[in-house]
């Protein structure tokens, strides 16, 4: 084989490639360049980790984006979906330099480093990172929290289980998921001290196949009520299939309204209103409250009181009417806030009102530092006494867990079966 040929071949290939490039670039400049014009409005870019059709996390963020986009004339939005963590810096660059965004929302934990670095790179732009804990002068953080809802779901699960085995299909063993499982188990225990919560990790946020396997394994193990953290309605569908076969298994929907996937089996669930958070952030940017200089201590951790989350498996339906009678038939004594004996249905409604009435946690700035303090709420699920799986008293009687404890939670309460490390 000749040794000179590769060089000539390379040269030819390079020339052809450059020619193709030049044609493409020329065409692009000719068609698109004149369209670049400045706008006086606010333009917000959203970076999503999943597809907007995931029926979970990303779908919910996109719903929130659409609602605020339609509400305000001064707002334009653009989004990029299915962005991997490695690609986030590039997408931020694009949104800022090519789409001329003033604000960028990065909606996955894995985008944290990229968001902080972008904040330093573009000091006059505003960034908000969802679910992280690092901030900067122009980088704020926000999160809509579900633990109150999981607790309320737990109350209902404790009342409905006949086998005293409640299953939980869990995504990743990280503090957020551990906190939600614990809140759920605390609710189960309040109504049914004999019941246990069995956890199966699937190590994925979105994986219908693994979710199905996990749900079926839990059912085979005797669980008759299931909750889950996974961005598809798979677990609900599995339960509906078992219901059709004459074996009723009940479930709680997650993140999006999943009632329609299992009207016979879906009891309640967790719903999010990201638009409430986005509305607040964008309005405050628009009226000048938030600037690229003062976000160092801006952190949203919004729950029922702020309206960022809603109890139910469909908007406006906190409890599937089909289950009202069953929940009214079980009575329980409120030992935590002393409102006497009532049905589980009434207890859910009481707790819902208690948690809506006051904020659970309040952000304060002390000596230039953000500090989360306990809010003046009448009831919070994470109130001692709480024991871990080894029987150690982790939270003393009457003591409440605060933001930092909950955000770093790496242990399960005593009625959870499974390992918190996955």
């Amino acid at each position, binding site marked *: 084989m000749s040794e000179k040929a590769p060089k000539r*071949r*390379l040269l030819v290939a*390079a020339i052809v490639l450059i020619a193709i490039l030049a044609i493409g670039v020329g065409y692009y400049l000719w068609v698109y360049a004149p369209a670049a014009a400045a706008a006086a409005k606010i333009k917000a870019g959203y970076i999503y980790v999943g597809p907007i059709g995931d029926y979970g996390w990303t779908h919910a963020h996109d719903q929130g984006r659409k609602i605020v986009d339609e509400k305000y004339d001064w707002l334009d939005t653009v989004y990029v979906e299915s962005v991997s963590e490695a690609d986030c810096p590039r997408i931020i*660059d*694009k949104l800022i330099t*090519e789409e001329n965004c003033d604000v960028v929302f990065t909606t996955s934990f*894995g985008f944290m480093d990229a968001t902080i670095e972008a904040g330093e790179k573009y000091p006059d732009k505003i960034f908000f990172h969802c679910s992280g804990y690092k901030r900067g002068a122009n980088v704020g953080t926000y999160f809509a929290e579900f633990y109150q809802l999981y607790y309320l779901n737990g109350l209902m699960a404790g009342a409905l289980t006949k086998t005293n085995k409640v299953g939980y299909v869990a995504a*990743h063993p990280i503090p957020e998921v551990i906190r939600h499982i614990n809140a759920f188990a605390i609710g189960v225990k309040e109504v049914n001290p004999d019941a246990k919560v069995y956890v199966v990790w699937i190590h994925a946020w979105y994986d219908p196949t693994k979710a199905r396997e996990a749900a079926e394994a839990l059912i085979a193990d005797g669980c008759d009520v299931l909750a889950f953290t996974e961005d598809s309605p798979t677990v609900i569908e599995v339960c509906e299939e078992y219901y059709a076969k004459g074996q009723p298994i009940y479930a709680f929907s997650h993140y999006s309204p999943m009632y329609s996937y299992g009207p016979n089996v879906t009891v309640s669930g967790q719903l999010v209103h990201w638009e409430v958070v986005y509305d607040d952030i964008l309005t405050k940017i628009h009226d000048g409250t938030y600037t690229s200089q003062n976000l160092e201590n801006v952190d949203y951790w919004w729950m029922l009181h702020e309206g960022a989350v809603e109890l139910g498996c469909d908007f406006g339906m906190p409890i599937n009417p089909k289950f009202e009678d069953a929940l009214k038939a079980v009575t329980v004594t409120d030992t935590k806030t002393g409102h006497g004996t009532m049905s589980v249905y009434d207890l859910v409604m009481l707790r819902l009102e208690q948690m809506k009435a006051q904020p659970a946690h309040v952000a304060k700035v002390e000596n230039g530092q953000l500090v989360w303090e306990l809010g003046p709420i009448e009831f919070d699920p994470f109130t001692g006494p709480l024991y871990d799986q080894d029987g150690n008293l982790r939270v003393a009687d009457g003591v409440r867990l605060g933001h930092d404890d909950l955000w770093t939670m790496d242990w399960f309460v005593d009625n959870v079966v499974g390992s918190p490390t996955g």
Partner: protein
Amino acid sequence: MEKKEAPPKWMEVLVPLVSVASALLIAGFFLALQGIPPLELYSKMLAGSFASYHGISYTIVKTIPLLLCGAGLVLAFKANIWNIGAEGQLLMGAVAATWVALYAMPSAPSYLVIPAMFAFGFIAGALWGLVPGYLKSKLAVNEIITTLMMNYIAIKLVEYLIYGPWRGEEEWGFPITDKFPEAAWLPRIPGTSVHIPTLILALLSAALVYLLLYKTKVGYEARVYGSNPEAARYAGISSEKVILLVMAISGGLAGLAGVGEVAGIHRRLRYPWSISCGYGFAAIIVAFLARLNPLAAIISAIFLGGLFVGGDAVQMAFGLPVGVVNMFNGLMLLCLVSGEFALKYRVRVK
């Protein structure tokens, strides 16, 4: 069907170009069905990857791992050894670099820790490649299966480390390691994410694989083994030596790519699919698009890097899912393989 004589030289350049063009045509047909003007979309893609400073810099960022893995795969495929495990070898390089940066020498100065990361990254990738290499040379175990499976072991190992023993002390329980000390951050071209040492290594790797293949005895042996193992045996070439050497270098180069990704981009170990968005697999296309010419792999790596980067321009401008890029990659590989076939065989009806 029979084998043709050696195809003319100009065909060797033509086949990749025609393959890319056919892939563009076929993809364009489907895009047009969806009501999307293909020419406009392609020009936007090109513009996204090559028309701006940002675009070019990110294309180079993607080119680095694609070229390192691709150069290694050229060597392997040239010797007819089917290393499908570059993805796992890359991850093992990332693991080794993390170990060096966070645990072995956390307070060492840059001039020690950076070479150490690359050295251990290469060794880790090489070892990961040597396992299937050893199985193939001693027990004749099919390397396609073993290299592919080794990927999943590497993925699980990374997951185990970030959920378990290496989970960061300062990261609020999230499954990522702590950040590397600053001494272990690879220097970047200012204002971009282009990590300079790895870029240099990537270009060197292409040149070295070229020299190895065409200017050394082992390279000659590898090529002979690749074109005809029986002939190689008669010529007294040790298949064992060829297989082990090729797998070690091929795996080691992928390991270097892993070092670059964690020390140059992320500066920590994280989810496997965040460290590598399939570079090890895309590098297979890099190698074939270059028609197993290590120097041409530089161009094909840039082309594929650009394709990765151009993909999101498509998303933003046309609201298309990122799957379009995967579809295009798949079509291109299909066209390449068919082109290769047409080049080497002719069908004769008797």
